[in-house]
C-alpha cells in the first residue's frame, strides 16, 4: 500500500513541478469531501496542490427558492411532508422544517418507498415527497412515481429537486474565471450514469476526469492519475473504481429515470440557472408533480445573510474565507446549506479541518 501511495505522491509532485503553478482539483461528491477531510489527505498534499469541494452535496446545491417552497407547503394542514433527513435543518424564510412551527406533519424517511407507504397509510392527507439528490437518488423516486401511477394512488406527489452532475460541471467550466484543472468524479453517481457520462467534459473542456471510490487509497490514486494526465498534457477519462463502476452504468436505473423524468433548466445555489440540469416529471406523470398540483414555480431568491456557500460550491473560495464561518455559522446554528449537511464543505472543514489547516 505504501508503494502505491508513494507512486501517487510522486505523480502529484511531478505535476506541480511541471505546471509551475497551483493545481486545483475539484471533487464533486459530498462523500468524497468528507473522506478527504477525515483521512487527512488534504493536509498531506504538495503545497501547490489544492482540492476544491464542488457542487457535490445535494442539500448544498438546492436553491433557496426551493427550500422556501418546501416551507410554504409545510404551512398547509392538509399535507404531510416526507423528506430525507438531510433537508430538515436547511434554513429558509422564517426557519427550517425543524425549527418552524408547521401545520403539516413532517416525516423523515430513509427511502422513497417509505414516502409512498405514508400515502397508503394516511388516505386523508396528501403526501409531498421532497425529492432531492443526484442521479444516484433519482431512480428511487422514479420507481415510486411509477408505482403510484400503477396503483392509482392519488394522495401522493413529489417536489422534484433532483439534479444532474454533468451539466453542473459544464456550467462551472464555462465560467471564464474558473480555476479547475481536473475533476475527481463521484463514485456512486457513476454507478448509475457510468463513467462514460464524463467523456463530454474531457472532450469539450480538456479536463482530466477520474472516477474514484471513497477509501483513502482510491482518492490518493485518483488524484495521482489526474496529475499524471496533467503532466502528460493529455486529459483522459478514467475510472479506478472498477469494483462497482462500469462505463455504461446501471441501465435499468437510467431507463426508469428517462421514463419518468426529463431534464429542464434548473436553479442551483450559487451557480444560478443551469441548462437541462434538473429533473422534472414527464407530462404523463404530471398528476404526481407537486409543482403542478399546487401551481408553484421556483423563483430565484436573493440571499441577504452574507452566506458565501455559492462561491464555496464553485471552488472560488474556501469556507474560512467566508466572514460567517465559525462565527455566526456553525453546524449547531448553520446559516448556509454547506454547513447544514454533514457532507457540505463548510461542515467538513469545521469538523475535521480547523486545526489542521491553520
Amino acid at each position: 500500500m505504501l508503494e502505491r501511495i508513494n507512486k501517487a505522491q510522486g505523480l502529484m509532485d511531478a505535476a506541480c513541478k511541471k505546471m509551475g503553478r497551483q493545481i486545483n482539483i475539484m471533487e464533486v461528491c459530498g462523500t468524497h469531501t468528507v473522506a478527504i477531510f477525515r483521512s487527512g489527505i488534504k493536509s498531506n498534499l504538495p503545497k501547490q496542490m489544492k482540492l476544491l469541494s464542488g457542487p457535490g452535496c445535494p442539500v448544498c446545491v438546492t436553491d433557496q427558492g426551493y427550500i422556501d417552497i418546501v416551507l410554504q407547503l409545510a404551512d398547509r394542514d392538509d399535507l404531510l411532508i416526507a423528506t430525507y433527513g438531510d433537508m430538515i435543518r436547511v434554513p429558509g424564510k422564517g426557519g427550517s422544517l425543524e425549527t418552524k412551527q408547521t401545520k403539516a406533519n413532517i416525516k423523515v424517511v430513509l427511502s422513497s418507498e417509505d414516502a409512498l407507504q405514508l400515502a397508503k397509510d394516511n388516505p386523508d392527507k396528501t403526501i409531498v415527497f421532497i425529492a432531492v439528490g443526484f442521479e444516484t437518488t433519482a431512480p428511487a423516486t422514479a420507481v415510486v412515481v411509477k408505482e403510484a401511477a400503477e396503483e392509482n394512488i392519488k394522495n401522493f406527489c413529489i417536489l422534484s429537486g433532483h439534479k444532474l452532475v454533468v451539466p453542473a460541471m459544464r456550467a462551472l467550466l464555462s465560467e471564464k474565471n474558473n480555476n479547475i484543472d481536473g475533476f475527481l468524479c463521484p463514485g456512486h453517481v457513476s454507478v448509475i450514469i457510468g463513467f462514460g457520462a464524463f467523456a463530454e467534459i474531457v472532450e469539450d473542456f480538456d479536463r482530466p476526469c477520474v472516477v474514484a471510490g471513497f477509501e483513502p487509497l482510491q482518492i490518493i490514486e485518483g488524484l495521482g492519475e489526474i496529475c499524471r494526465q496533467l503532466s502528460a498534457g493529455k486529459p483522459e477519462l478514467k475510472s479506478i473504481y472498477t469494483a462497482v463502476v462500469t462505463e455504461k452504468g446501471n441501465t435499468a436505473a437510467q431507463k426508469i429515470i428517462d421514463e419518468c423524468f426529463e431534464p429542464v433548466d434548473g436553479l442551483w445555489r450559487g451557480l444560478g440557472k443551469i441548462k437541462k440540469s434538473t429533473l422534472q416529471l414527464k407530462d404523463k406523470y404530471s398528476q404526481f408533480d407537486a409543482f403542478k398540483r399546487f401551481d408553484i414555480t421556483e423563483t430565484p431568491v436573493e440571499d441577504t445573510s452574507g452566506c458565501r456557500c455559492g462561491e464555496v460550491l464553485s471552488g472560488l473560495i474556501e469556507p474560512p474565507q467566508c466572514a460567517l464561518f465559525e462565527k455566526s455559522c456553525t453546524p449547531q446554528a448553520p446559516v448556509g446549506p454547506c454547513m447544514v449537511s454533514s457532507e457540505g464543505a463548510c461542515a467538513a472543514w469545521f469538523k475535521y479541518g480547523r486545526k489542521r489547516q491553520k
Partner: protein
Amino acid sequence: MCLAIPARIVELDRDNAVVDAMGNRWRAKTTLLPEAKLGDLVLMHAGFAISLVDEEEARETWQLLAEIADFDQTPNKISG
C-alpha cells in the same frame, strides 16, 4: 447523501428484499437491479440496490464505515 452501503440480500420475494450490513437488517427493493439474487452482495442507496459488489470491496467499505463510526464517537479526537 450519495453514499451507498454494501449489504447482503438475506430474503428476496420478487423485488422485495431484506438486506443485512454489519448485522443491521432492513427492507429494501431490487427494482433497479433485476439481476440481483438471494445471497448477493449489493450496494444499497436510499432503500434500493443499485449495483452488485464483490466480497473484498464490501469488506473494505464496512471497515471504513466502522472506522468513521468509531472516530465520530471518540471524545478526544485530535483533528477537530
